[in-house]
């Protein structure tokens, strides 16, 4: 029993952090929100080079194997840096196709996984276990839907709707399109992929929460009122202490879930990380005062994402139901 990231995993996080810091992800996120995907695609390419999209792809399909812990490590960093795009969906699609291959239907995996792992395919995905919308359908080059036991390449998507998080572009996928696979294995692979999506979203939310806390701690140390840094006031300190407690107890749930990949564990991690990140967002906005309420200040990128991620890939209520029911499709 050694429930600690190993050196390699820590190094992976550090290198992603350094790369994303240099990539000016806030600017890419703002461009993405405005419909200019080029800067985001550039970040995407670097993430692909780092292997991020190969983390749920077996080696025979040019991936790195199914690595949920490394996925969690990576998505914490993606959240910390507010990386735009359907990153969760792309990794979850990898898990879905991999699982389908494991269940005997390897054709879709052979055809799609290599480009997905290499980052060439920006993939979005709509599953019955997720919400009604696919993320960034207009930016994606591959759109998958799985409903009623049928996996299809969607023929297109409806109008893009605005999200509370301007960086997240939401649209319903058309239910028709080329049939890639059908039968109970699609249903099972879809459930499996939903767990990956939920895990990656939990990690991303944790990263968002950590970024909000970091920025807020830095701000309250330098913002002075009544002749003293506001971070010296106990009401401020205690609120931030609670944010840290929430995040630090969500973290082990995340890594525990990555190790077991059991639905109730993933749901617990998602619920806890979602709440912790949202709590961090509320505290961050309050403690920044009015400047935190402005769109032009970068904090807004994380503030709005914290709320959106709370309901993406498993609302708080659904996650709690899963914790007690023991699995998807049960109770």
């Amino acid at each position, binding site marked *: 029993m050694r429930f600690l990231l190993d050196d390699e995993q820590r190094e992976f996080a550090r290198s992603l952090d350094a790369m994303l810091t240099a990539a000016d992800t806030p600017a890419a996120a703002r461009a993405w929100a405005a419909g200019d995907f080029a800067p985001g695609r550039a970040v995407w390419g670097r993430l692909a080079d780092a292997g991020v999209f190969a983390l749920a792809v077996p080696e025979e399909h040019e991936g790195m194997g199914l690595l949920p812990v490394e996925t969690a490590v990576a998505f914490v960093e993606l959240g910390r840096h507010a990386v735009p795009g359907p990153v969760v969906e792309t990794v979850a699609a990898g898990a879905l196709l991999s699982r389908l291959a494991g269940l005997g239907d390897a054709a879709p995996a052979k055809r799609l996984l290599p480009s997905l792992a290499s980052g060439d395919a920006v993939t979005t995905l709509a599953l019955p276990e997720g919400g009604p919308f696919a993320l960034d359908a207009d930016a994606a080059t591959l759109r998958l839907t799985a409903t009623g036991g049928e996996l299809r390449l969607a023929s297109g998507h409806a109008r893009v709707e605005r999200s509370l998080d301007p960086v997240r572009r939401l649209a319903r996928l058309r239910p028709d399109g080329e049939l890639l696979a059908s039968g109970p294995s699609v249903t099972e692979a879809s459930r499996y992929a939903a767990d990956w999506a939920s895990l990656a979203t939990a990690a991303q939310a944790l990263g968002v929460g950590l970024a909000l806390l970091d920025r807020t701690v830095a701000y309250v140390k330098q913002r002075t009122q009544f002749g003293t840094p506001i971070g010296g006031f106990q009401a401020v300190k205690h609120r931030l*202490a609670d944010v840290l407690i929430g995040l630090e107890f969500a973290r082990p749930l995340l890594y525990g879930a990555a190790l077991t990949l059991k639905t109730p564990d993933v749901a617990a991690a998602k619920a*806890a990380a979602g709440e912790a990140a949202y709590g961090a967002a509320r505290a961050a906005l309050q403690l920044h005062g009015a400047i935190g309420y402005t769109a032009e200040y970068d904090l807004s990128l994380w503030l709005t994402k914290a709320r959106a991620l709370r309901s993406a890939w498993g609302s708080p209520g659904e996650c709690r139901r899963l914790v007690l029911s023991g699995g998807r499709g049960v109770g």
Partner: protein
Amino acid sequence: MDLDFTAGEGEFRQRARAWLAGHVPGQPLPSLETREGFAAHRAWEGELAADRWSVVSWPEEYGGQGVDIVKWLVFEEEYFAAGGPGRVSQNGINLLAPTLFDFGTDEQRARILPPMASGEVIWAQAWSEPESGSDLASLRSTARRTEGGWLISGQKTWSSRAAFADRAFGLFRSDPAVDAAKPHRGLTYLMFPLDADGVTVRPIGRLDGKPAFAELFLDDVFVPDDDVIGEPGQGWRIAMSTTGNERGLTLRSPGRFVATADRLVRQWRAHGGPGDTALRDRVADAVIGARAYQLFTWANASRFAAGETIGAESSLNKVFWSEYDIALHETALDLLGAEGELADGGDWAEGYVFSLAGPIYAGTNEIQRDIIAERLLGLPKGRR
């Protein structure tokens, strides 16, 4: 990273489970906050100790099994899963013993630890005073030098189970000339019998009226030099460094909360209304919280095993488990509905009352949040 136990840890778990299955009392013992319950719990400590299960992590020479922190956590999981009684020796085992391991003499360890392990001598903590709670360094009880030892005087209060305990340990001001701006100096840490000449123990009913809590009036009580822990005058440092590391892990083990959350889920499955999603969500939160605390502790144990130290992080633990414990019990009482009001309605009521004290003792949660903010987040120090 993994959560797999070694073969040795698995074997230890099985051994603990088998022993507990054969020994844990079938009926819950009466409350350890009552005279009758205290005696029953003392006898239980003796039974645990007879087969070396009362202090598994201590060296064998003092009655333990010399196991590491991971096995200790395994034992605690099994203990609470088996419905093991609350530990009446906990103040001695969790607070005094680590101090003696670090600062005591060989003679003190040999004399004090074995009867502590067996429940023969049960210890009370005499730190707080009527005027000194959170600001403990302001304490006023005194220790005066005398032939062969010290004479202690003053008043201590809120001493858990001191009404029935045998001995107490606490801090006393031995250097009255100390600079008022440096109240942490000139304190001496020592131990004394609760039935000594000059000690008056006055029981104070807890919130539920149970009589084991007490205040202590001390009037020139003689304490021999052998019962001073560490150097006279160094009491503050000794008391505060009570193996900061392990204490964060051992004060409340996750096994207790995991077992209680399991019990809550069973109760909810038996009695919960399927449509009451608000209550269902709280039950789920209890499960999530227990798992979070368990995994958080495993992570700390792993850090500990890797030679890292755990300092101010233990304040995260303290706030988490104390607030979690209340939420867990409130959920159980709400699930019981009208029955939840019954004081003798089973373990939930007793557990609820006990949980309410969590944010107050072991350093109030306000003080813990100050520590988190200042030492972990690096925010400016405020007034204390």
